[in-house]
């Protein structure tokens, strides 16, 4: 039997795809931060303030208090879903909430904040995704827990809802505050 090799091309293409999927799969558990970032200091950055490019923020502006660093964007439907929880946290919890406006458009982002309310104490305009890449952000929303010294303690991919807050963030924050108080 003669096999025409051209007809094996789809199989080759598929094998390539499987390789990509398998490697992608092996490389990452999407709920975990790549280990090299966990317990490390925030990467250094200098990025404009959202809506006011004349002023810039750096990682030092995030120090001083346990904080949440939330990656959001107007093109991300889950961010809308997550938003009320962030509003509540910034209102009721003793913690700073910072935003990274990721791959977005300034005008849209500002309109979005006006529409849904602004839970962020400061907002970093990361419009070419540089900081997000340094942080290893996969998509939006993602939320980082950063301690008072600017060390990343936890990363959450996806919406921070009531359960995530109560089960994961609240105990970790209590622990961080206890350590800080004890030392």
């Amino acid at each position: 039997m003669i096999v025409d090799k051209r007809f094996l091309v789809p199989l080759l293409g598929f094998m390539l795809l499987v390789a990509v999927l398998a490697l992608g799969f092996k490389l990452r558990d999407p709920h975990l931060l790549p280990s090299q970032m966990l317990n490390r200091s925030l990467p250094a950055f200098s990025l404009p303030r959202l809506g006011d490019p004349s002023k810039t923020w750096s990682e030092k502006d995030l120090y001083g208090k346990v904080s949440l660093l939330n990656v959001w964007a107007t093109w991300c439907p889950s961010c809308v879903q997550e938003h009320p929880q962030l509003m509540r946290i910034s209102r009721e919890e003793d913690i700073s909430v910072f935003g990274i406006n990721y791959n977005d458009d300034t005008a849209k982002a500002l309109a979005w904040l006006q529409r849904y309310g602004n839970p962020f104490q400061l907002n970093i305009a990361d419009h070419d995704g540089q900081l997000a890449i340094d942080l290893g952000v996969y998509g939006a929303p993602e939320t980082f827990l950063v301690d008072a010294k600017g060390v990343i303690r936890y990363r959450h991919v996806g919406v921070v809802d009531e359960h995530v807050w109560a089960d994961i963030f609240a105990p970790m924050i209590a622990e961080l505050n206890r350590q800080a108080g004890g030392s």
Partner: protein
Amino acid sequence: MIIELGHFALILALAMSCCLAVLPGFGVSLGRPALMRTGGSLAAGMFVFTLVSFVCLAQGFIGDDFSVAYVARNSNSALPVYYKISAVWGAHEGSFLLWCLVMSSWTLAVAMFSQQLTDDMRARVLAVLGSVSIGFYLFLIFTSNPFDRTLPFFPSEGADLNPLLQDFGLIVHPPLLYIGYVGLSVPFAFAIASLSSGQLDAAWARWSRPWTNVAWAFLTLGITLGSWWAYYELGWGGWWFWDAVENASFMPWLIATALVHSLAATEKRGVFRSWTVLLAIFAFSFSLLGAFLVRSGVLTSVHAFAVDPERGVFILWYLIIVIGGSLLLYGIRAGQMSVNVGFGWLSRESFILANNLILTVSAITVLLGTIYPLIYEWFSSGQKISVGPPYFNMVFVPLMLPLIALMALSSFSRWRRTATEVLFGRQPIRLLISGLVCLIFCLLTSTWNLWFQVVSLISIWLIVNLLADARYRQGGRGFAGFLKQTPSYYGMWLGHIGIAVSALGIVTTVVMSEELDLLMSPGDKTQIAGYDLRFEGVERVNGPNYSADRGIIAVSRQGRLIEMLYPEKRLYSASQSVMTEADISVSFWRDVYVALGEPIGNQAWSVRVHVKPLVRWIWLGGILIAIGGFTTILDKRYRRLKMARQLQSRAETSVQASLA
């Protein structure tokens, strides 16, 4: 007890699928007709046991059996009973049980409605469907068992169904989508059966066509419904997000659309044989790939199911065996299929070829966009990016415009060869008419957007061509010729009209929507796109498992009240999650969409209003396309009793591939 019964029934269904994969196939290789005919009863058994299993799980939900982990996670005793039932497919495990139920239903349907096939072919097709099912059942039982108990300590109350899913859309969207997804396994099974038997003539195209059309029509309905659900339920007026999970359903749709067309060419003219087989394999592969992307957690998404690496590994192996195996078989056998059937440059064959090319490229484009984050991560040693709507809009729209233009021209194309005169003769006047309609539209709405002009011109041109074709069918005067066409023709006609309607809806909504965000206190008025809105205030209401603030907004136009809208902000008590429930004043020409934001200060609320012209057309088009798909199967030629004999004689005259 009922739960254990369900679990047991599922294991029996697995056993049935194993027998179905093996016994009829043995029958074929031993040449024993009695063994070949076991397929029908085994398929029936597989279906019945899966159905029993499904009903048992549903009973677990209705009876609030929170000792079942899956029920405890996705239900609550306060949930209305219709949501308790739809909660069965509200998360990963149960939705996969539904998937298996749909799979066994298709298998049973094939067993029942394929009497015209030869025993040999029927046995092969059922064996392929059985083999495909084995993997599904193993996956369900070993990695995602919905019947697991949490004994002896179980919660007294369930965690409730995700509020986003407590909605009519969720009751119908997944079943329709799965019928479409899984239905693509039927043309796949026909293709593999043909490849394995070496009977590589055009007959398999005729057998597969009605099945493919039905599966494709269901997939179309499922996607349309999903888009509609996202529009009213996610609360911000968007209707397509290019989300990984949406793409997972869209890619098989694109390939299946190509398949529907190339099957027609293969059946009628015997062309593109090997290509059509490949498309049939691809269409089902893409629906499996979709399942992998959604359920493995390899990509994160709004819709993504719970992440579990073990499941991902299982599905990946399954993909390798099923898709890799079929492509290998294809690689070995397809070479024997080449056949020289000529056709001219301007022929229906050429148009279908162009259609296939564009649709396949589109599907690959969407695939690349969807998995690009993975590739990027690999090449950049762990850095991550995400690909958003900008990429998809940029690459996808330019592919769709020529597709619609070709569709317009193809209305007059004929098999083999079309005279230039027939194809282009009257196009100047039709283009002129379309241009005028488009101009009037622009003048009336004073919209001078280039995208709008281009897309609406092409879409209107498509409609003008389809109307002209209907008018002059068979040289008839008036629409007399049109009334004498076959269901296949009506299906094509409706489907193409549906595309034009959807395209018009999409471009109009995107370009002309107006939106307004504002703070409103009781008594405040505002104006948007000629509508007057009056905010009457907010009242407290209680639902069965939530409490809500309900806004009252009067929408009027030129002093006449059109509708009272009641958008809600709901707090679901079991999960303590807040949901925005928009309210929409619906009409053929426009939607007025109102969503309630946050309370701000003294009785004031932030309110968001969209006016979306022609947004309904997007889904109307989808429904027309699906109706078109369903119409084609009414064609008499699929129901001829003597078909088997005809096919046999045809098979003998056509190019027979020899079994080596």
